[in-house]
């Protein structure tokens, strides 16, 4: 044991070796293999994978209109869902952290956490029921001459925003909790009204927490294909293209090429938000 005291580097090395072997070798290895597979191709006649280098998959991905549309649509929906969740979560988190009594605060944390634990599929399925032509939304809207948005992209956006909302509320709440109350007083003492304080003190201070939440909402939306199947009607997102190509079409190289899009987008996003300190807020 004394060796470990004299050599802290060795101790750290011993502690980090098992998790790094798992993540570095198994996970990074699998990701690297995925990138390699994206440079292979599938033989159109036999359906077998041909292990020869080609950029054919990426060429298809960037030049065929359908794939370009689906890529832009997926990024757009992920961004929209993130914005909707941030707008919904911020007032709730602010109320929880800075207005509610400690007792109320505890009740609210439980109320936000419980739907997080209810299964993903159950919630997506619940929205299938909500949006259906003879479901509750149609039932409520009918007297006003309105109808349910039904199954399609609006349904996908509603459902995804619903599914990921707790992932945004909780980090923002934790971030606001840490804000010292004296900041509010100082701002008020210096003559700022409530809105000015919110806009110039609270929102900037909570920004890293909002970005931390956005990593979840954005990433989870980027890869989703199941909510799309349940409430999306005939619409497609990148996830569906990946899923269909690895399954029904058995074109693993193309699925791998499509999967590099979310990897590149997420890595760019993580690199862009690194400076905000959001990664320490996860």
């Amino acid at each position, binding site marked *: 044991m004394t060796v470990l*005291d004299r050599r802290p580097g060795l101790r750290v090395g011993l502690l980090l070796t098992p998790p790094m072997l798992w993540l570095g070798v198994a996970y990074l290895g699998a990701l690297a293999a995925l990138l390699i*597979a994206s440079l292979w191709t599938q033989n159109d006649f036999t359906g077998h994978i041909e292990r020869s280098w080609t950029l054919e998959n990426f060429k298809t991905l960037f030049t065929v209109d359908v794939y370009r549309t689906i890529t832009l649509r997926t990024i757009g929906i992920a961004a929209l869902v993130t914005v909707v969740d941030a707008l919904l979560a911020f007032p709730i988190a602010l109320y929880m952290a800075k207005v509610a009594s400690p007792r109320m605060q505890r009740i609210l944390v439980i109320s936000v956490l*419980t739907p997080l634990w*209810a*299964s993903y599929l159950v919630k997506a399925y619940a929205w299938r029921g909500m949006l259906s032509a003879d479901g509750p939304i149609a039932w409520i809207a009918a007297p006003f001459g309105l109808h349910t948005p039904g199954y399609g992209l609006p349904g996908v956006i509603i459902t995804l925003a619903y599914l990921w909302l707790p992932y945004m509320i909780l980090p923002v709440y934790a971030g606001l909790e840490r804000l010292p109350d004296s900041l509010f007083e100082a*701002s008020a003492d210096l003559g700022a009204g409530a809105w000015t304080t919110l806009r110039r003190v609270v929102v900037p201070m909570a920004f890293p927490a909002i970005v931390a939440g956005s990593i979840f909402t954005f990433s989870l939306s980027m890869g*989703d294909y199941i909510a799309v199947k349940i409430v999306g009607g005939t619409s497609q997102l990148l996830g569906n293209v990946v899923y269909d190509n690895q399954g029904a079409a058995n074109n693993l190289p193309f699925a791998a090429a499509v999967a590099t899009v979310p990897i590149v987008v997420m890595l760019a996003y993580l690199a862009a938000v690194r400076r905000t300190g959001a990664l320490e807020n996860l």
Partner: protein
Amino acid sequence: MGRPSSTSMAMSRGLRRSLAGFTAVVLAIVYIPLLLVLVNSFNSDNTFGWPPPSLTLHWWKVAAESTGAREALFTSIQVALVATTIALVLGTLAAMGLRRTRFFGRNVVSLLIILPIALPGIVTGLAFQNGFRTIFGIQLSIWTIVIAHATFCIVTVFNNVQARFQRLGTNFEQASMDLGAGRWTTFRLVTFPMLRSALLAGGLLSFGLSFDEIVVTTFTSSPQDQTLPIWILQNLFRPNQAPIVNVVAAVLVLASAVPIYLAQRLSGSTAEGLTGAR
């Protein structure tokens, strides 16, 4: 935990009321779909028209006899238990390794830990499937699901343990070593008890994450190894099975209160005892 009233004073009464009203409305909307699932499990109409024509316990009886659902539940629990155990060990080791030291590559290590949840599940799932099948030629099984699940569960344990370390500092362990305890004795008698509730919280979260995971699971499971989410997904669009799915969904909504209750109990006793000790 007393909150000085000055914070509230800095916000006008109108603003505070609007925040309260907004929170109430959004949370009500959050619970409506979940209530719909519960009500529909008693809906006598098997296409779940709204409002329900009448209520029945029939679907609950049918669901209780469904062997498919029961086997899938059992598989899910097994997978979640093993994945959580692996994540507890690896996540704790990683948090201990990154604890006090600053070394080159530290940021790379933290990025590596968060990467499996920062990348969409579909990427993780496809990467593992391709790795197992195309690269290593391994058949998909319950073990391939476990390996994939453990990978994205590590981060939840890591986060909980790291937060606990930050909160408690190193004084207790240093005191223990000064008093002559060895490294292992200190870990057993000081560090581990300090971490216990963080490990339970992280483990609970990791169990839930694995139990509910569907995207990664669809890519890493064989047709024989159905977890509960896979079973639900496969039966969702079968008209005859829809009522059973509804009951399973209702049970899952009700069961989601259990981990919350456990987490509250844990933080109510151990965690506060520890913060008090600080």
